[in-house]
């Protein structure tokens, strides 16, 4: 047997070793829907990144008198085409849609990043050290999860909208977020407040997930080995626990993106999120509601991107879940 193996390698035949990332990617590729969704999301992200070059008009540019131009109407002054026409004040719909996409996606992405980071750190700490911190954390999380989420979200965001200066936000944060979302820093404050509200109520699922994983990982032999070699607790948590527990966190992050896009749109739709004239898919949708009866196609334009983003992120999350943990295959 041994000389058979030796002769195999002598002839240059070897089995290609795949890195774990490659394995996961190959498993992910088998989900056609997830791959299609990945493609769609990439297109949406790319349009959001290059929105300044793609959008024909500025989002707040009011063209007086040109209300409700039909699809494909030509602007007489500059000769550019309104691909989706204009809205009720004369702003180009297509450009507003693109800029709104940038803002909505940025809000969702930053909320996901903040909530996952906070959730992972707090969950890992609570799971590893246990004791009083763990107890307090779990009671707190249970309490907040049983409180109805939407009314709480509405109250907090309405309070913050009324008093934007209640929570001091450093000017640098406002300036960076403004640059990312192509907004002036004052308008960016609304978006940052929404991010804080969404992430502030959303870190708890990630913390619970992380705590569960750490509780089971804590008893494993490699942790004991690391500790006997003199590794500090911080080192164990950050170099051993967290990387091994990332699988459900990644799935949660993808599903969370879908949830945050819809949540931000819902808040703006009800009027408690980002206000006009800053375009976001939610408040564009609520603005079309009164004109829906004469122009039925109008709500579809901002509504479909919300649905599409939510659907695609859900598919990607599903595909990731199957790719990262094959034991969960149905």
């Amino acid at each position, binding site marked *: 047997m041994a000389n058979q193996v030796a002769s195999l390698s002598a002839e240059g035949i070897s089995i290609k070793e795949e890195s774990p990332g490659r394995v996961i990617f190959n498993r992910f590729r088998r989900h056609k829907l997830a791959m299609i969704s990945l493609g769609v999301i990439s297109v949406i992200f790319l349009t959001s990144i290059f929105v300044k070059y793609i959008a024909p008009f500025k989002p707040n540019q009011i063209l007086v008198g040109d209300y409700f131009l039909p699809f494909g109407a030509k602007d007489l002054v500059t000769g550019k085409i309104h691909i989706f026409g204009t809205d009720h004040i004369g702003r180009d719909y297509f450009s507003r849609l693109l800029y709104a996409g940038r803002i909505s996606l940025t809000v969702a992405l930053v909320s996901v990043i903040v909530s996952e980071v906070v959730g992972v750190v707090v969950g890992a700490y609570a799971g590893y050290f246990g004791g009083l911190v763990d107890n307090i954390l779990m009671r707190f999380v249970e*309490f907040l999860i049983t409180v*109805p989420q939407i*009314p709480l979200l509405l109250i907090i965001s309405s309070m913050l909208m009324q008093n934007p200066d209640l929570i001091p936000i450093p000017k640098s944060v406002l300036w960076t977020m403004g640059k990312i979302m192509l907004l002036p820093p004052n308008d960016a404050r609304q978006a940052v407040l929404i991010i804080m509200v969404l992430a502030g109520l959303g870190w708890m699922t990630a913390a619970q997930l992380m705590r569960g994983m750490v509780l089971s990982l804590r008893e494993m032999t490699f942790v004991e080995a690391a500790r006997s070699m003199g590794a500090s607790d911080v080192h164990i948590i950050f170099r051993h626990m967290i990387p091994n527990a990332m699988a459900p966190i990644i799935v949660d992050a993808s599903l969370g993106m879908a949830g945050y896009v819809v949540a931000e749109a819902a808040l703006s739709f*009800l009027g408690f999120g980002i206000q006009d004239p800053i375009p976001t898919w939610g408040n564009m949708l609520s603005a079309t509601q009164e004109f*829906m009866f004469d122009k039925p196609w109008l709500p579809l334009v901002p509504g479909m991107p919300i*649905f599409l983003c939510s659907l695609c992120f859900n598919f990607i999350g599903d595909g990731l879940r199957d790719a990262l943990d094959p034991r969960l295959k149905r």
Partner: protein
Amino acid sequence: MTGYLIRRVFQMILVIFISAVVSYALLNLAPGGPLAGLGQATQSARFRITEEDIARIREYFEMDLIVPVRFTRWFMGQPTGPLTIGGKQFFAGLVVGCRKPIEAQRVDKNGKDITVTIGCKQPVTLADLVGRRTSRGVILLDFGRSWTTMRDRPVSDLLLTRLPNTLRLLGLELILALIIGIPLGIYSAVKQYSRFDYIFTTLAFMGSSMPSFFFGILMILFLSVLPKMAGLPYLPPGSSEAVRDYVIPWFGTITAGSFTDLALHMILPTLVLVIISVAGWSRFIRASMLDVLRQDYVRTARAKGLTERVVIVKHALRNALIPFVTIIVFSLPGLFGGALITESVFSWPGMGRLYVQALGNYDYPVNMAILFITAVLTVIATLLRDVLYTVVDPRIRFS
């Protein structure tokens, strides 16, 4: 069992108290609210509000008292005056608020003009509280009076007028979602990998990632706006009943307020809610059922020669429905204040829409009442779920 229940009841009381504190703090600690416009009104020559007027308005909203005292008056109805024991008054001179604060204009560190309270011209003592109108307290189910939505009407009146609408909408939705969702989930699990299963899982996936407000608007478009434009029979797009008689093609005139009218108005919101619930619940049932069907006892039951139907309904289903108990029990507090977004889209006069309207009108007593009642219902539902779990699953015992 009794010891566990007593411990749980204490925990429940604590949680209810904390949620009362939190809901009060959220709304009342931030500046702004119903008095936001008063400051400018003094400057304006048109309104001519005197200082005494402002003091009176502040007294109406109880904003001249300090927050802890305001909270206890909302929660318990006390203190309504000095402590009277055996005819003698104590603490009559305790200062609990400020009727006429001295305000000054300052410039804060960002360069903006703000108004700072630096003193008190006329404090409010406990003795001054005698004779003021107060409620009997939230723990006695008296939620105060509405500030703006229906001026001076008791909040409980307001809630009770809206409650039947929400109950009939969400009650019907719950029953329909259970009747439709559970069989769909079971069938899909039993016939796994069939064409029905694939179509169903994809549809359910799309249904659960669809935002509810967009779905509501789509339904209004396809079942109300477009048919009306085409001259086909259409469903009314909003509200719970019509004000005037209206005509539907092919069906004739519908009288306002009749049973047909109410039923027609209920179809669209119920449809939206049912589809979204079914999408979520049937996936859950399907996953749970798949787990159960893999178990050994199902194989044993089949090996014993029982018909497939008996195996599924009598053995598998009962075990698959155990985790579903949580979902059903927690939709009971949802019956009270649930479908905020759907009610707003369809202008349905229910508790959810009342909440959103009151928040927009700064009518805080209504918001605090709804939050508090929902918190109490959720806490009761948690206890109910824990008790039901031990009933439904004999392997679980109280810890």
